[in-house]
């Protein structure tokens, strides 16, 4: 097992280098310069633009910049933001917690509603419960996030006035509900469908028939045998979802003015603030990779057949 973890971490490094190179090239080739964007409505004169670009080291040749960046990355220094002047680490740091809160809440909705729904509709296959859940799940997956966000916001904030409208507030739960639900719907639907497929497959296995032949009650069989085996099957989906969740929150964060990593990344792309964008990407990849690794490790814990040597 230990050798496996080391190997996975070693595989981590070329991927991170690969991604950082691709994104570094892509972001630095974009037309338009960050300097122009510091002027707000005023279009700055060329001297100021040149001075700023020299200050940020944008005048050095490409490979020198890339090497400096990678050396910095190795030392854990993500550089300073062109537009904001602060250290990238701090900017990302205080935006990490809102995104994590949103991601965890959305995933919680997905897991605590999606999985039971999927489980129940698979066990009650063919009944109206099954059809309703699955049609609901398909609709959830098909809903464009920004449209559902606006509908929810309109319904709950203005018409019913139950929930606050704008973004983060001082971080209390009330503000989290709407964005988390909007983000969660898609993932809940996906999880319901995956769980249903997994349960259907497990129910058709021979060992379930053996369990029935042993005279065990349906509740016991579903609770112990079916549930445990289903969890193993859907573990990857949950891992994949949480891994990619960090990057998928862009649209929801924009509509709800939620100060997260997703909207920060898109804003920095528009403002050509490369160090911040690059920093966000590194964070997202780090989360994605570590979630995948922990899912694989969890696998060997849950499923004795899987032995990493």
């Amino acid at each position: 097992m230990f050798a496996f973890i080391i190997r996975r971490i070693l595989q981590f490094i070329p991927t991170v280098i690969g991604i950082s190179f691709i994104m570094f090239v892509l972001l630095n080739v974009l037309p338009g310069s960050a300097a122009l964007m510091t002027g707000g409505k005023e279009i700055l004169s060329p001297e100021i633009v040149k001075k700023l670009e020299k200050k940020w080291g944008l005048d050095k040749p490409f490979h020198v910049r890339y090497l400096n960046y990678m050396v910095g990355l190795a030392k854990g220094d993500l550089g300073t933001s062109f537009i904001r002047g602060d250290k990238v680490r701090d900017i990302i740091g205080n935006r990490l917690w809102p995104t994590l809160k949103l991601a965890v809440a959305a995933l919680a909705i997905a897991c605590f509603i999606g999985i039971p729904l999927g489980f129940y509709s698979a066990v009650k296959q063919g009944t109206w419960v099954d059809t309703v859940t699955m049609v609901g799940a398909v609709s959830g997956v098909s809903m464009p996030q920004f449209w559902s966000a606006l509908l929810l916001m309109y319904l709950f904030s203005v018409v019913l006035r139950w929930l606050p409208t704008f973004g983060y507030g001082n971080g209390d739960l009330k503000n989290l509900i709407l964005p988390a639900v909007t983000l969660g719907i898609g993932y809940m639907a996906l999880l319901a469908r995956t769980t249903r497929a997994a349960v259907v497959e497990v129910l058709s296995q021979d060992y379930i028939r053996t369990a029935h032949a042993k005279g065990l009650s349906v509740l016991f069989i579903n609770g112990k045998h079916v549930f445990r085996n289903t969890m193993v099957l859907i573990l990857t989906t949950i891992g994949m979802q949480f891994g990619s969740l960090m990057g998928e929150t862009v649209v929801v964060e924009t509509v709800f003015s939620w100060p997260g990593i997703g909207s920060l990344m898109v804003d920095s792309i528009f403002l050509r603030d490369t160090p911040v964008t690059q920093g966000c990407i590194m964070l997202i990849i780090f989360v994605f990779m570590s979630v995948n690794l922990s899912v694989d490790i969890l696998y060997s814990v849950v499923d004795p057949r899987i032995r990493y040597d």
Partner: protein
Amino acid sequence: MSFSWKNIKRRTNLLIGSALVMFVAGMAVFAPLLAPYHPTEDANILYSEEPPCEQFWFGTDIQGRDILSRVIYGSRISLSVGLFTQFMNSVIGIFMGLMAGYFGKWIDDLIMSITNILLSIPTLVFALAVMALMGPGLINVFIALGVTNWSYTCRLTRSQVLSAKRLNYVMAARALGYGKFRIMFNQILPNIMGPILVISTLGVAGAILLEAALSFLGLGVQPPTPSWGGMLAGAREKLFTAPWISIYPGMAIFLTVLGLNLFGDGLRDLLDPHITQQK
């Protein structure tokens, strides 16, 4: 899995799915006949933001253009983006998947590490960066979405090839002297098209949502071309004064994507022998 009509009939989601998709495809093909006005030419600023009335069933947008016509013509953009990008994704994905699955060893490792990289970068962000590089425009959207999203198809193809490789008729083909590529393309590929078709259908749905998100963030097709995502982006602030501007394009995206997803699910049930026995 016989394809008798009785067999298809009971596939409700396949039916509803294909009905919706046919409806949107019809809308795209017969747009000039169906649309009461021209989506970009008939723009009369006097009728800016008229609510749905007898003259404009879906009302007008801020430029005074009939929203029903733009929704109808918008189907062309969304479907072409969906179909074309997924076609590119599938072609690249299938080719890479075949190579990785059939040859294995270092080719497999190389392709797998590439897909690892592509999968870890969020698709929307990668597409945004590519769009920012090339600037808005339909062809650019094709490229941005067509080149970044083939990892899923590649992984699925690879796993299907790995299992098909061990089947007896493939071994028999090798014994009969079939060449590598003949085995890949006329022995293995036709038999794994089922699952690939399913994931491609769901891929089209995904591409349409992505294009809408891109336009929503301001990097979709060039104005005044009507794209559902673009219409939605513009209408965001107006949700309270002119909600009809955003409701109808949003509904259009939702129904199209729903249709494609239902069609994909129905296809999967039809092709998956396991499900057919039990129903």
